[in-house]
Structures are given as structure tokens and as C-alpha cells.
């Protein structure tokens, strides 16, 4: 059996096994602590590097260290939205309950990270711009993303029947993800209309290595944190949704 075939049907089987809430619950029991540990390891190390070791930026001085919190949060807020949209699409196409659970559990985490990105962004810009809020392209896109998240969550809680709520929210997430790049493009154009390129640049690969590595570590660490919270919330949701099924009853009764 050539390797690709075996990898493919391993993915295929695990994809389906993850599909059933019970399998997910047992698998996630192991995966959650692993994610937690990875997050702790990476982030503390990244934080240590970012705060202590990395040299101050020649122009912005130490306020530049906020980047180690702002960029991972901003990147994650977009990443989580895309994950939510993919999970929703999977849920809608193959009718997988678990996909909806993943999508719905990601929404609050995504919103939290978007808020975080907004707050740290304005904190970072404050000393430079002198104001707490600046109509800068990235901050405005984050703000709109925050409204998208709240729209998705508001729609979910508006329905009384859970099944319709899941499917409607999934549809909104999919429609949203199609429009997010357009929003980003229009905001970029719009902000270039008002003032020139913004003062604080993203940093990005142009940064020297010792500034960049903590950034990557932090971003990776946050992603595992997202994985950890997602699995935790998903387990709760699975318990709640499947409470009438026998395996949940046995599990709970065993606990006494």
C-alpha cells in the first residue's frame, strides 16, 4: 500500500471518528492537556525572549514590545474566523454535528482575541499617535471583524431551536468569510485615502532574528492556547448536546 493511500485513509478515518461526539470526547481528553502544555512552554519562552532579551526598537523604544502580544492576537483573530468558516462549511455540506460545535465554540475565543488585538493595538499606537484611537487600516479591520464575530454569536442565540441556529450561524460564517477580504481591501484603500502609510509598520520579516523568533513563538503558543480552549469548550458543548445519550449518562454517574 503506497504511503499516500495509507495517510489518506488514516485522515479519512480520523476525520469520521472525530465526527462522532463520543469519539471526539475520548480523543480530546488526551489532546487538551497536550495543547495546554505546548501553549505554556512556547508562550512563556516567547514572553521571556520578547520582554527580556530582544533589543529595544531604535525608533519606538520599549513600547515596541507590545508587538509580541498584538500581532499574535491580530493574526489569531483572523485565523480563528477562517477556521470557524471552514468548520461551518464542513458542517453544512456533510451535516457533521461536531463541525458545528467546533465553529460555535471558536466564535467567543475569536471575539476575545479580536478585542485583545484592538486593545493592544490602540495601546501600542497611543504613545506614537497621541490618541487612543486612530482610524488606521488594521485597527479598523479588527473593529469590523469584532462586529462580524458578535453578529455570528448574536444570530446563534436568537434561535430557539438549536439545530436551525447551528445551520443559520454556519451560513453567516461562510458568507462572512467570503466578504472579509473585500472588507480588508476596502479599508486599506480607504485608510490610504486619509493619511499616508501609517507610522508604525508591521515589523514582519524585515525584523532582525532576535526580534522575530519571540514573535513566532508567541504566535504559535497562542494558537495552541486557542486549540486548548476550543477543545475545552467543545467538550462542554458535546456534554450539553448529548446529555440524553447513554454514554454521557454513564460517564456522569461513574463520577460520583
Amino acid at each position, binding site marked *: 500500500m503506497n504511503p499516500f493511500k495509507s495517510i489518506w485513509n488514516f485522515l479519512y478515518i480520523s476525520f469520521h471518528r472525530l465526527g462522532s461526539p463520543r469519539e471526539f470526547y475520548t480523543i480530546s481528553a488526551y489532546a487538551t492537556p497536550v495543547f495546554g502544555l505546548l501553549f505554556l512552554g512556547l508562550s512563556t519562552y516567547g514572553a521571556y525572549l520578547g520582554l527580556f532579551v530582544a533589543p529595544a526598537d531604535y525608533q519606538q523604544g520599549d513600547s515596541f514590545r507590545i508587538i509580541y502580544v498584538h500581532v499574535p492576537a491580530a493574526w489569531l483573530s483572523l485565523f480563528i474566523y477562517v477556521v470557524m468558516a471552514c468548520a461551518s462549511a464542513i458542517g*453544512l455540506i456533510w451535516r457533521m454535528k461536531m463541525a458545528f460545535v467546533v465553529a460555535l465554540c471558536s466564535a467567543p475565543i475569536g471575539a476575545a482575541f479580536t478585542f485583545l488585538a484592538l486593545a493592544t493595538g490602540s495601546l501600542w499606537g497611543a504613545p506614537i499617535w497621541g490618541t487612543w484611537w486612530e482610524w488606521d487600516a488594521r485597527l479598523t479591520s479588527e473593529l*469590523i471583524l469584532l*462586529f*462580524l464575530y*458578535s*453578529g*455570528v454569536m*448574536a*444570530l446563534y442565540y*436568537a*434561535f430557539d431551536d438549536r439545530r*436551525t441556529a447551528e*445551520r*443559520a450561524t454556519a*451560513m*453567516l460564517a*461562510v*458568507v*462572512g468569510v*467570503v*466578504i472579509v477580504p*473585500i*472588507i480588508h*481591501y*476596502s*479599508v486599506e*484603500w*480607504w485608510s490610504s*485615502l486619509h493619511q499616508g502609510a501609517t507610522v508604525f509598520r508591521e515589523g514582519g520579516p524585515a525584523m532582525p532574528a532576535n526580534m522575530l523568533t519571540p514573535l513566532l513563538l508567541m504566535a504559535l503558543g497562542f494558537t495552541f492556547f486557542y486549540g486548548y480552549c476550543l477543545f475545552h469548550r467543545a467538550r462542554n458543548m458535546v456534554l450539553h448536546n448529548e446529555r440524553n445519550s447513554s454514554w454521557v449518562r454513564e460517564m456522569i454517574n461513574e463520577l460520583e
Partner: protein
Amino acid sequence: MLFRNTATLVQPLCFFVLIALLFPLSLPAENALLQRIGGGVIWVAAVLATLLSLESMFKPDHRDGVLEQLIISPRSLTTAVLAKSLAHWSATGLVLTLFSPLLSFAFRIPAEQAWVLFISLLIGTPSLTLIGAIGAALTVTLHRGGVLLAIIILPLYIPILIFGAGMVGQSTQGAAIDSQVYALLAIGVLATTLSPFAIAASLRLTID
């Protein structure tokens, strides 16, 4: 059907004009200021009027059961929904666009910019109705879906608003506006091709 009860025709229009007129009343009414904000204000009024009238797109049909018949009929729901959206646009978007030159006088917008505003509304409002219809389809079964419709749809309207109002702003400074025209047209094409499927799917999702 829509033209039958003219009420649904006149209401968005009055709402549009009223909102637009609020601004000159509430702001110091010297010409320079009015002219600069005119394009943006009229666009925001158009967005709000469209949003308000979206409610009456699927709710009446849902209430009397016609929507169910549409869903199970052999006729493809997507074309039915596209036809319904175009009919709905002609009652709201089109009417607002035709009235916008009148409002431009109230805002002392010179003829040349008023013409640009007219074009931007003409191109932009169909996408407003089409994308808004997705939200209307999602919230059709809810009793108090109005506010929710605004919350989920307004973020999606932002690119259209930016390009539409931006087009007028650019033209006041005499700058070239063709990039915005292309952007709005692109969004329009995207909306007309993709959203009917999304609307039909949303209806099938929420009606059961």
C-alpha cells in the same frame, strides 16, 4: 405583487429622504460642510432604508405559507429568489437612486458630483439588497429579527458603503473615480452571481 400595495413602495423612500434631511437640520448648515458630507450622508440613508425594507422581503411570504410552496416547487428556488430580490430592489434601491439628485440639491452638491452620486447608488444598491436578502432569509423565522438583521448585515455592507461614498468624495476633489466604479461593479457582479444561492440555501436552512 410589490407594486400592488404602494405602501411598501413609499415607506423606504420617505425614510430615505427624512434621514438625509436630518443631517442639514442638525449640523451648522453652511454650504461647504454640507457639500463635503452630502455623499456620505445620502449613502448612509440609502443603506438604512434598504435595511429597513428587507424585513418585508420574506416575512409576509413566510407568514402566509407561500414561501413553503416556493421551496418545494420544482421551479428552482434560486431563480425565484433572484427575481424576488430584483423586484424588491426596484421598489427600494432604484427608487432611492432616482430621488438622489433631488436630495443633492438639498445638500448643495454641484451637478457633476450629483451625477457621480447617482451612478454610485445605481451600481451599489443592488448589492445592498442582494447581500441584505441573505440576512433576511436567515432571520425570516424570528419574530423580532429586525435588530438582529442590522447587526449581522451592516458589517457586510461596509465595503459597498466605503466605495460608494468614497466615489463621491473623490469626485469632489476632482480625482479619478474609475477605480471605485470597478470595485463597486465587481462587488455587484459577485453579489448577483453568488448571493441567490446563499439566499436559497439560507431559506432552506431556516424554514423547517
